């Protein structure tokens, strides 16, 4: 890399790193985002229902668990699972750790999204279900949840975008997602500009249109 060190932007280097970055992006960054999102969506609903439970021995601990997860940093949570849990015999791969921690962390945010969505359902819907003698199962699955899902689509989308933007946190436990790969390139070749800039642009290209889409969805659903 001798003669090219002075140049502001090295295109050869760029073409060298680009395919690797895109590969890491598609395989890992997107894959991790998708898997963690699934965890967040499912677990988030459980958290939300738990917080609404009539039994305080369920609602109270759920509230505090959610608060605890929301208030503590992802890197520490990653370290806790990846380095701490093996002490008691639970050994997870870095990838699984990453998905699990991101998933659980965003489940905590999703519980708030669900809560707002459920609270926004008009009281009359609940009363109509009572008037028709519908069972709680049918009330939730047939009437309430379909309406909640529709309402929270934009917020959920925003949460997934936020999750996506925090996948680089996995750098701390060495998961070779896109930013880690960019960093490795930079470290190996003593040249950071191209890999990190390209990584940043890929992020921007992925998240900006999606954000705009979520905003449009929000106005459409508000009708």
């Amino acid at each position, binding site marked *: 890399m001798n003669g090219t060190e002075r140049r502001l932007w090295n295109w050869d280097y760029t073409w060298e790193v680009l395919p690797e970055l895109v590969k890491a992006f598609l395989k890992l960054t997107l894959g991790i985002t998708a898997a963690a999102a699934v965890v967040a969506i499912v677990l988030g609903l459980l958290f939300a229902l738990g917080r609404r439970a009539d039994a305080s021995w369920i609602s109270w601990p759920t509230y505090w668990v959610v608060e605890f997860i929301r208030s*503590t*940093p*992802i890197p520490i949570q990653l370290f806790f699972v990846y*380095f*701490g*849990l093996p002490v008691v015999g639970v050994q997870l791969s870095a990838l699984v750790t990453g998905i699990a921690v991101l998933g659980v962390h965003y489940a905590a945010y999703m519980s708030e999204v669900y809560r707002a969505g459920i609270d926004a359902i008009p009281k009359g819907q609940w009363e109509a279900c009572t008037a028709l003698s519908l069972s709680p199962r049918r009330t939730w699955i047939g009437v309430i949840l379909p309406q909640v899902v529709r309402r929270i689509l934009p917020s959920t989308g925003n949460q997934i975008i936020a999750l996506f933007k925090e996948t680089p946190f996995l750098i*701390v436990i060495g998961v070779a997602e896109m930013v880690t790969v960019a960093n490795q390139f930079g470290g190996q070749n003593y*040249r950071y500009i191209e890999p990190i800039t390209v*990584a940043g642009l890929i992020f921007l290209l992925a998240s900006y249109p999606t954000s705009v889409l979520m905003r449009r969805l929000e106005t459409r659903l508000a009708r």
Partner: protein
Amino acid sequence: MTEQFVETAPFFLTGIGVTLLYTVLGALAALVLSFVFGLMSLSRLVAVRGFARVVVEFFRGTSLVIQLLWIFFVLPQLGIRFEPIAAATIAFGLNFGAYGAEIVRGAVMAVPKAQWEATVALGLGRVRRMRRVILPQALPEMIPPFGNLWIQILKSSSLLYLIGITELTYEVKQLQFDIGSLAAFSIALVVYFLIAQLLVLVIRWFEKRASARVGRGARQVVIEQPQAVA
């Protein structure tokens, strides 16, 4: 194990101190930029609004990790070198300032239109209108979301060890060699949680103050009802 913990306690405590320092620094930088970008996005001039919009979308659309790495590793290669503390403050300021800009904008737009109209009726200039009427009323709205942002900043300070800052996460990673990984990171989780609860209390205090001030401020500007003619 206790004696090892006692030995490392001072480092642990400095770690907490450094974390708090960056949490506050980052928050101040973000606060300033939130208002700068937020008010810019409300400008009458399209160019100003557009610029603010682009900056905000850019910093919201990219990852904080990338921004941090860019400022600390890429800029030096372009000749601009920042000390870790400056890099951290700038990165936090820009990233969280972009999110904060939306908070400012939203809160200002939520002030009832009637208030704007009242200031026009009274002939108040733009700056005075903002300072004395609109912003004081928008402030209470802003505090809870800013509170959330502050907790985000606290959590993000955990990344700063990547650029060599010896905050709490850095110290805890060292601590794990003395008292074991499970203990070290469990303690770290609890400490961050407690700091977050502390921030929540501080935010609540600000909320109370701001709401009270609106009561006082509004009274000074309200238009008197016309006196009934007997």
